[in-house]
């Protein structure tokens, strides 16, 4: 992608590699290829590489590599970049118990969309979501894009405690909270899939480029999977 990227100085030993300006599902194959190419180009001189929706932040070892050398390596790696194939990502089916007790914003989203709670659930489960980026918490994957009608802005006042497994919507993005944390997303339901345990081992279940399909399950199935039915408001 010769010439189609910008390299910006971000800190003493950090570059921001900017590939795109806006969020788009079409960015993913390029970002994934860039991540692979940059890891290869830097090897042991890389301290951290943080991909996001449109950028990759590259923190290199400034005691082993000169600034100019680092920039050259980035340019060389990206000049001959080809987009990654679609075979890269995995597809996950995530079972979710959609219920007002664990998903208090179901009715808010339904009201805004002028439809029923059942229809909100159907639409949330009706498409594959791309994992755009990991961030906010270990294993927290930002996914999208949700049906335009379901797009709902964040809560005006974030909750202090959102339980692990909570599935939420913010604008056209959707995500699962891997562990109990504060949060302002609109919560629709809960999954028993142990995202945090995967992340803690350094093997997050969801990775950028993966696709996720939510599947609605009844309460007893959720319980059988080890789900915690404590209502969101009572969660401690």
């Amino acid at each position: 992608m010769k010439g189609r990227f910008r390299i910006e100085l971000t800190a003493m030993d950090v570059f921001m590699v900017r590939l795109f300006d806006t969020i788009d599902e079409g960015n993913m194959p390029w970002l994934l290829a860039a991540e692979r190419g940059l890891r290869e180009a830097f090897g042991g001189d890389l301290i951290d590489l943080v991909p996001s929706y449109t950028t990759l932040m590259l923190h290199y070892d400034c005691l082993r590599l000169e600034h100019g050398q680092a920039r050259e390596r980035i340019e060389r790696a990206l000049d001959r970049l080809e987009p990654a194939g679609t075979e890269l990502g995995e597809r996950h089916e995530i079972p979710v118990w959609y219920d007002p007790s664990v998903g208090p914003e179901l009715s808010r989203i339904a009201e805004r969309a002028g439809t029923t709670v059942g229809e909100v659930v159907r639409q949330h489960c009706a498409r594959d979501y791309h994992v755009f980026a990991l961030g906010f918490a270990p294993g927290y994957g930002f996914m999208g894009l949700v049906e335009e009608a379901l797009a709902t802005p964040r809560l005006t006042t974030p909750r202090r405690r959102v339980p692990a497994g909570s599935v939420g919507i913010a604008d056209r993005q959707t995500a699962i909270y891997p562990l109990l944390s504060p949060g302002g997303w609109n919560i629709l339901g809960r999954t028993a899939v142990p995202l945090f345990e995967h992340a803690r081992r350094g093997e997050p279940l969801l990775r950028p480029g993966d696709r996720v399909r939510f599947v609605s399950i009844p309460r007893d199935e959720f319980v059988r999977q080890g789900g915690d039915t404590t209502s969101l408001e009572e969660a401690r």
Partner: protein
Amino acid sequence: MKEATAQVASLRVVQAGPLALVEDGGRFGVRHLGVTQSGAADWVSLRWANWLLGNTLNSAALEIVIGGGLTLEAESDTTLALAGADLCAELDGEPLEPGGGFRVKAGQRLVFRQPRNGLRAYLAVPGGIDIPEVLGSRSATPRERLGGHAGDGRPLQAGDRLSWRGSADTVRRLPPSAGASDTLWGDRLALVPGAQIGHFSGPSLYRAFNAPWRVDDRADRMGVRLVGPTLQCQLGSMVSEGIPLGAVQVPPDGQPIVLMSDRQTIGGYPRLGALTPFAAARLAQCLPGQVVRLEATSRAHALETHRRCLASFC
């Protein structure tokens, strides 16, 4: 041979203070998983504490914030070292000078009272605190429930025990060269301007680098808020992107937040740039109310200063 004969030594927490966490040099190579860097907020003082005992410089030590009555009892004869903030530490009632190694006998109590200078003290033990690594680091991150002495990121509580297997025969004092990397003094924080700096208005940039900034009490290992003139940026919210250590981000209220070791991995506010690693360590020692100044510096000069700081440990 040495390992076979190594004795386990330990400290028991008699009383917990406001916040004490086991920290090392940080958790690297995992930020793409959404896992924060973590590690000692004042990484320079962590290194000095370890240097005093002849440890590997990034070994796990205790980061003690404020003090506030934290009481530790030695369960064996040992050697310990303190660097960073002066928190009026006492050993069995005798004041301990900050910045040195000292011998402790089994049963003696170490108490940390209140900050006299700085905010965070580092207590090193021979060979480093012996706990398993989580994702390549022993650092505790409470928000992520990772690492630390309990493995779940939680701070020290009464009854907890810290143990280690190393030994230190010498008691070192800080060398005169340590002054060059002292994070307890000065009000200037060097900042490398970033690519978004051109989006701030001219008057805002003038104020950013000339006005005094007060460290707010909304300050923790994640970020430190600075209070002063309002800064204006044409960029509203951006697409979230990676955040480096020391990033000075400016949310719509115009009051900067400096992002520290436990910062979120990605975020979407425009940034003036990033403090140098040394300036971030300096800020980690500032108490709420303290006044600091931002000083623009070139990347090359920042690197030169950084290398000089690292060389002082030789």
